[in-house]
């Protein structure tokens, strides 16, 4: 005789289970945003195309931030780009992940003393994975993506939650570096 014993799961547990299922899909289908913010983007075409074929991992480029899951910050970020990057990041649908590629995103790299380039990306947007190197070669970039998948699996890729939780801190940092984030750039008019 079978004894059927249903333990009623609490709402949190149900949510967690759904979240885990969602994580499985999310990490196997990471769509990255086509945004070449800096020079490390030059190693992305080999990663995307036949030589390394990123699509094996289920990754592919996407046209707009609404569709994408991963924001790749490829290298140094000038202030002008950072404004647009933050705007783009806020347009992405959650859950969203950020991969910082190149040393410039970590500590400014070779441009650490430049008047136009920020030094530390994770003060302005939360970063889940860094890929070091100037420039990191394609294998390193691919490895970074695999790392991101691992972090999603172990529920450590929580940058977007952090952005909600410490939103004021991020906003204050953005304001300190940029002044206003959204500016009138109608510079030709």
């Amino acid at each position, binding site marked *: 005789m079978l004894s059927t014993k249903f333990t009623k799961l609490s709402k949190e547990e149900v949510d967690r289970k759904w979240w885990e299922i*969602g994580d499985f*899909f999310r990490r196997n*289908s990471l769509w990255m945003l086509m945004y070449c913010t800096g020079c490390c983007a030059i190693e992305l075409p080999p990663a995307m195309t036949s030589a390394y*074929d990123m699509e*094996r991992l*289920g990754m592919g480029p996407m*046209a707009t931030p*609404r*569709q994408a899951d991963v924001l790749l910050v490829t290298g140094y970020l000038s202030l002008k780009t950072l404004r647009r990057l933050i705007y783009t990041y806020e347009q992405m*649908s959650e859950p969203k992940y950020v991969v910082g590629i190149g040393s410039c995103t970590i500590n400014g790299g070779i441009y650490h003393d430049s008047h136009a380039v920020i030094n530390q990306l994770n003060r302005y947007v939360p970063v889940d994975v860094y890929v070091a190197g100037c420039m990191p070669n394609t294998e390193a970039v691919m490895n970074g993506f695999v790392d991101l998948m691992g972090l999603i699996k172990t529920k450590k890729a929580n940058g977007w939650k952090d952005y909600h939780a410490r939103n004021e801190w991020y906003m204050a940092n953005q304001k300190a570096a940029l002044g206003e984030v959204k500016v009138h750039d109608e510079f030709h008019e």
Partner: protein
Amino acid sequence: MITNILFGVGVAFFGFVLQTSIAGVNRKVVGRVQKRYGPKWYQEFLDIFKLLSKRSVTHGWIFDFGVIMALGGIIGTAMFMPITSDLVAFADFDNFFIFVYLIAVGMLGMAMSASGSGNPLASIGVMRALTTMLAYEVPFMIVVLTIIKLTGTSSVTGIAEFQQLASNNWFMIALPLGGIVGVMSLMGMIGKKPFETYIAPAEIASGPMVEYGGKQLGMLFIMHEITVFIEVSLFVHLFLGGAENVVLFIVKYFLVYTTLNIISSVYGRFKIDQVVLFFYKWPILMAISQAFVAIYLGWVI
């Protein structure tokens, strides 16, 4: 009636699963053309379910309503689709014009929702999609007119059964010019290059899809898969003699879809007015001459 409707829902679901799997396999096939491995065959499923699991944004009620109307219209259309001559939800009511026009509800819903997002790129994409529709639909309808005139019925199963008779050839062979026009129009219908103008990421950043993310995009993906299912299986039924059993149907379906994909992978995309000029040059002439030859002269192979 209820069983019929449930069966219809089953057909729509079958179509979704079939097309999504075949699309995944085709991504691998195209990957081989491009000298690479390509994704897993079930990647399309992963993509769709991932999208459904995300938290999206909405631009107002019309943005959501349009998506629901789009998916609903397409599911409704798919419910009429016969798989084989026996496996059909609403026998005798699978009229060809229902497919052509009920699909338009889905298209209209999507167009409405895209324009409702307030993004001009989406409106441009919709404009291009509608213009492409104006291009490919007329030659296709002329060919189908010939077929309906020859068979005397506009029921899709009726046309398929007519071709399965021993004395008749498939219309792909019987009406060779019309068959070619059918292939071209089908490529336009399912949005394959060179007629993929309305997505055109490098020009208008994926056109109507530009503002979608998360569940809305996921639902549009489902809608797209079912639309492709409807259009390709319509081609199978109209031109390739339908199918006696499910396996044959899947084989024919796979062959048609894969052929189109391979053809499209070595072509670029036209501009929108080039698409219109293309279809209103040779295909429509071929379709009209085919219709004249078949209807007035009775020359059918």
